[in-house]
């Protein structure tokens, strides 16, 4: 009834989940349970399309939340913002009139600094050198790109970037998360991803080099129910997380 490609058998942990993952299109995206850094390094020779950036350290993925939106997550401590280009190392490409490397956002000990490489202003003040970002601020890149920078959750150093001007990131995302240790999805406004109508919070956090998940309701990962007593469950990239009232997928980009 369901089908899959043999490629999936490279990931033995997915065996039980084959029924669920069968609807994915296996030829385009890789769905393997590898850790973040390893994914970038190890899978690229196998499945990589030529459009991927060439940096091995780059680690980003999309969270697709059903009924809510798609979010680009960057886990690196240093993120370059700029115009997308085929073979440059841009973690956060914005389709706009920008330089290829327009600004660098750095996270050090929970504090974000922005280093302007092109024309950058913060809350209307032009920047000449690296500046610390704090609270809620508006970053303007070039003449037209406006980005709202917030750190919504008091207990997390994860920052959220929201494009307020009509530009788009590539791939298109409703917001960009600079993920520090954790990322909270939930119904309240201080969540990194605000999901209207959810019953409780879902927390994604880094565990070793990979991702794990904790939720307030029973969840299943790729169709396999998670045993609650076993603690936080590993959440490999490419997997689909489902709860009673929600579903989301992680996709590597």
């Amino acid at each position, binding site marked *: *009834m*369901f*089908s*899959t*490609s*043999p490629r999936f058998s490279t990931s033995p942990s997915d065996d039980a989940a*084959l*029924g*669920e*993952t*069968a*609807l*994915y*299109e296996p030829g*385009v*995206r890789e*769905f393997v349970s590898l850790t973040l850094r390893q994914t970038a390094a190890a899978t690229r020779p196998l499945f990589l399309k030529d459009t991927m950036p060439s940096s091995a350290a780059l680690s980003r993925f*999309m969270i*697709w*939340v*059903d*009924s*809510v*939106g*798609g979010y680009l997550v960057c886990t690196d401590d240093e993120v370059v913002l700029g115009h997308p280009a085929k073979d440059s190392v841009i973690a956060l490409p914005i389709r706009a009139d920008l330089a290829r490397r327009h600004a660098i956002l750095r996270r050090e000990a929970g504090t974000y600094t922005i280093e302007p490489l092109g024309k950058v202003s913060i809350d209307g003040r032009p920047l000449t050198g690296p500046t610390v970002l704090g609270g809620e601020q508006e970053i303007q890149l070039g003449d037209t790109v406006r980005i709202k920078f917030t750190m919504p959750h008091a207990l997390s150093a994860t920052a959220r970037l929201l494009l307020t001007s*009509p530009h*788009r990131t590539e791939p*298109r995302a*409703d917001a960009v998360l600079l993920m520090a240790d954790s990322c909270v999805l939930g119904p309240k406004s201080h969540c990194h991803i605000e999901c*209207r*109508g959810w019953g409780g919070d879902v927390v994604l956090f880094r565990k070793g080099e990979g991702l794990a998940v904790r939720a307030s309701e029973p969840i*299943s990962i790729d*169709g396999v*129910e998670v045993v609650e007593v076993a603690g936080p469950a590993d959440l490999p990239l490419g997997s*689909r997380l*489902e*709860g*009673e*009232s*929600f*579903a989301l*997928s992680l*996709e590597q980009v």
Partner: protein
Amino acid sequence: MDNQPLLLENPSASLMDLRTPPSDEPLEPPGVTEPPEKSARLASAKFLYPTGSKPLEGYTLKRGVGRGGFGEVYFATSDAGKEVALKLIRRNFDVEIRGVTHCLNLKHNNLIGIHDIRTDSLGDQWVVMEYVSGESLEEAIDRHPNGMPVDRVLQWMRGIGAGVAYLHDHGIVHRDLKPGNVFFDEDEGEGGTVKIGDYGLSKFISCSQRSGQTESVGTVHYMAPEIANGRYGREIDTYALGILLYEMLTGHVPFEGESVGEVLMKHLTAEPDLEMLDDPYREIVQRMLAKDPEVRIGSVNEMLSLLPGGRRVEPLVREKVESWTNSEASADGIGSEHLFQNTSVRGLPDNTPARTPAEPSQREPLYEWLSTSWNGMVDSWYDWPLNPVGKALLLFFLVGAAVVSVGAWGSMAVGLGIVYLFYYVFWSAFVQPSSRSDAKQPASGKIGHSEPPNGGPSAEAPSRIPPTRREQAIARRQLRMNWREKVHKELVAKPLREKSTELLSSMVLVGVVCTFLSLLVALALGAAGGSQPVPIGLWLSVVSTVGCWAILAISKFTEGKFEDQVPLRILLLGAGAGVGLLATGLTQTLLMGLPYDVDFGIRYHDSMLANLFDSNRSENMPQSFAPDVMLSVAYFSLMFLMLRWWRLAEYTRRTRFSLVRVGLCLCGAWIAHLVCWYPQPTGVAVAGVIAVATQLVSPWLPPSRRKTHAGENLAA
């Protein structure tokens, strides 16, 4: 494309088991063909396809967006990278896909474009649509639970109206207009475009008869009454637009209910509560929500022409507006001609300015002028492009200079202030048009209008604020006056016995409060003046108690009866004279003088009426002084005449206790001694104690009851 939480989902009918697997997928390993029971249960409330699946050739689904009446909507990208919305219409749904076919080649800015209709390998239909980023009207309304700002409402309404007018012009009735079907595309055009979705699909009653699965209850709120008779003309869209307009302005739909039946019944019978709307909208909504489709506003274009213009129509440019033509209007940015196809634009301004009668300003003109110019100055100060540090320094310097030179201008300012106060008393007593209305009361929060952050009328106000604001103010005042009148009527109708009982109890209470306050004040006065506090306390408490009694009694028996102030003032004059007599009598029986401090007031011979009275008074008693009958009577009469004491005891006063009123009474008493001398601070202290005690003691209508009264009034 909506996110209606009110979906009547049948949980047992899982989407999984209705779906047969793709037949052409290769390499189907045995053993995994059975859908896992657990995940089917878990997934029942969710989307059929997860991220990454490709049920329709050429498109990769990214995520589920929402669920409409006919199926799920996904965000997807084509193989080349084009972003689209895909709507899955499952084959076992009895949907008239022909409707969409008719709409395939419609093109309008305000309609979500339909690119294609495709059939997948399972025979399900997919509608390939333009993907719209941005919030739906539903979310926008949720963000403004008390109504959206008027300019946003107009932006939405024009967009929706233009789109619906286009549909009607092409012979298509939308039939499912609701906030969840309207979106705001931030990416398109300058400042975004309103987009209507789900047109051509809807057939909202017949669709669910068989499956019983996904009839959206939310739709019921927008359902025109004639649908009950099976009539699906374009008027049902007009009706839905009326509901939308109402909901945008107030934050909730006009007809709410516990069940579908109740809401439908209200559509058929109940009248919408229009009192929350302000004038241009009240009439529009009323006409759009007419039960009889023949009576309802006939076309969307007519509705659009009734809305306040594309730019704010100002009374000042009325002549220019009169000569507007269609082309001029579009050149002015009002919108393309099709907005005003049927109705001349000329009809548009006539509606608005005609409803703004030249309401006489309730504020005192001098004050008005002063506050206007002050606000103008403040605005221009903020707009002044100067370094903030420089501004701060300048401000500091200005304030410093003002403080240092206070000797030079202070006395002049005080003099001017006193002259103005006299003028104001005169003005409010004799000139002010509606005497017993509190004109300076700031407007309480009102639904559905944008108020500039600084409440006062600023210099630019006419160009910034639509004329409706004044109408709103008038309506608000009328509303307030209405409930006041109602309360007044009730008060007048109260039996004398009840009134007397109430009065008696407050009189007893006020005696206690006055005694307490007087002792406090006497202690302070005695400490300052060196005289004994006990007789002063006694004197103060008796005089203020009697004063309070007079005010309470007058207020009790007159509130709601008199339209003007003159009888009240006459009564108070008499009361003041009585209090004055009592005050002298007391000083004479107690053989005491009233504490007197030259620093607190003027000297006897400086007062205006000093020569009228006994002029050979000596001032050899600087710390205490016993005024004679004439002086006392004159002072208290003047004090009682000058101030509107009854407002302290009004049942309908705004707050139970207002320090501002106390301050006004103190000022009034002090000013009275300029005319007719009395030892200060004792004279002022009497006024203060009376003001505080009266306000504390007299009954007060709490805001919750006011609301009920206003509500009852509206209902009636």
